[in-house]
């Protein structure tokens, strides 16, 4: 346990030393919130709406944080370690690569929660945003959304022959989903043609689920989103695991 804690500590330090991961997980979403909050405030999104603009933005930006860690930071670390044979080196110690990979998953998940907590605190302090849903529903949704994002990243590392291909897949899917899912631009502004593409993206369902439970809707009213995200998690993790069985780690 002491050994695993030490590995986690080291992976946390390495995560924070990587400008891209640290900034886009902890800094950028918070910056977006402050920037757009200073323009729009937390006024209702449309006349008569219960939800303020920032109250809708916080859960959407939370999904953005999950995308950074699940589709960028975690898979790119995994692909890099694999290509440079760093896992192989750890395999040649009593620790083994399993503990390193587990630590990387945990650290990335912890950083995701840190980024989201930062968003919640900033929203609360600066714009008086509220979470109207139950804490239980919010937590369940967070876990399901994070699992779906990380499973996509995991599959991309398994598909990519090398780190370059994994990077390409991750960047492509991350940015397409970022802009077409409603995580950055509210989906109500999308034309119908974009909306028809958007509904096929897992991140769109994550944004819908998170915005819904934050606004006080029950998990039961988001059965479709839960089903899609659950299926993505199972299929992508399973697919990645099958592909990894065929890979040569040495």
């Amino acid at each position, binding site marked *: 346990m002491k*050994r695993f804690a030490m590995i986690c500590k*080291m992976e946390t330090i390495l995560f924070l030393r990587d400008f891209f991961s640290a900034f886009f997980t902890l800094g950028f979403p918070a910056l977006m919130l402050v920037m757009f909050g200073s323009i729009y405030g937390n006024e209702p999104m449309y006349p008569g709406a219960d939800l303020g603009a920032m109250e809708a933005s916080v859960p959407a930006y939370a999904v953005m944080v999950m995308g950074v860690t699940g589709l960028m930071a975690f898979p790119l670390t995994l692909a890099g*370690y694999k290509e440079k044979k760093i896992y192989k080196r750890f395999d040649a*110690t*009593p*620790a083994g690569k399993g503990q390193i990979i587990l630590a990387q998953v945990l650290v990335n998940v912890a950083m995701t929660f840190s980024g989201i907590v930062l968003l919640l605190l900033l929203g609360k302090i600066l714009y008086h945003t509220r979470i109207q849903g139950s804490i239980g529903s919010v937590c369940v949704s967070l876990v399901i959304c994070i699992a779906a994002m990380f499973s996509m990243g995991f599959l991309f590392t398994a598909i990519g022959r090398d780190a370059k291909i994994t990077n390409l897949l991750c960047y492509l899917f991350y940015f397409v989903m970022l802009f077409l899912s409603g995580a950055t631009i509210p989906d109500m502004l999308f034309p119908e043609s974009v909306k028809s593409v958007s509904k096929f993206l897992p991140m769109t369902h994550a944004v819908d689920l998170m915005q819904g439970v934050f606004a006080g809707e029950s998990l039961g009213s988001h059965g479709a989103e839960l089903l899609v995200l659950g299926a993505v998690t199972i299929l992508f993790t399973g697919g990645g695991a099958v592909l990894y069985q065929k890979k040569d780690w*040495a």
Partner: protein
Amino acid sequence: MAEAIIQVESLNLTYRSIRAVQDVTFSVKPGEILAVIGPNGSGKTSTVECVEGLRKPDSGTVRVFGKDPWVHRNEVYRSMGVQLQETEYPSKIRVGELCRLFAGFYDRPADWNALLSQMELEEKRNRRVSKLSGGEKQRLSVLLSLMGRPKLIVMDELTTGLDPEMRRQIWVSFENIRNSGVAMVLVSHYLDEVEALADRILYLEKGTQQFFGTKQEFREYAKGRISENEWDDSFSLEKLYLLLTPKQKGISMEDIL
């Protein structure tokens, strides 16, 4: 007679259709240094990676400390240190941090501060591993292989990239380590290193075992394969090896000498 630390019998390993290792048998006893030699692509690294538990053999038996290293890898690594042929470390980690991390993997780690000064890396403690020179990285790899106070060390190209002075310093260090009863497997292209350190030699070519025995027996083996008019008793191991390997490539004596 001391029980063998490594026991390999009829080892076979295939990568897709390529037979990388064919029917290789050898053993290593405590306090013994085995040098694995042979041309590039002869199966040296594949053979030692089976010993290291990093590759699963297709057939044959590999036992390290009496255990199958593929099955009991973590257990075996408590007493085995390795230096891999090609390896990197997380690019943003510092030398001292990496040493502390590796020290944490073992129940009774070596004093890594002393190892840092022995490897002349003391001043690089706060430097990122990615900023080290090739030779410094190589010394760091050697240092990390010693972290668990191993009873067996497997070194794949121990002194590649090191200057002659450091190579000789490492030879002396390894000679001392061997004298304390530690066994070593040394994959090397440097025959002067093999001459200086090895007790026994495993010579591979195209994945097949050509020779396994002592240095003196290797001389006898070579003598039997070199014509009398080419033979000289004073030949170094390197010259013997060069005379043996190009036979298949049609290179003449004049090309070598």
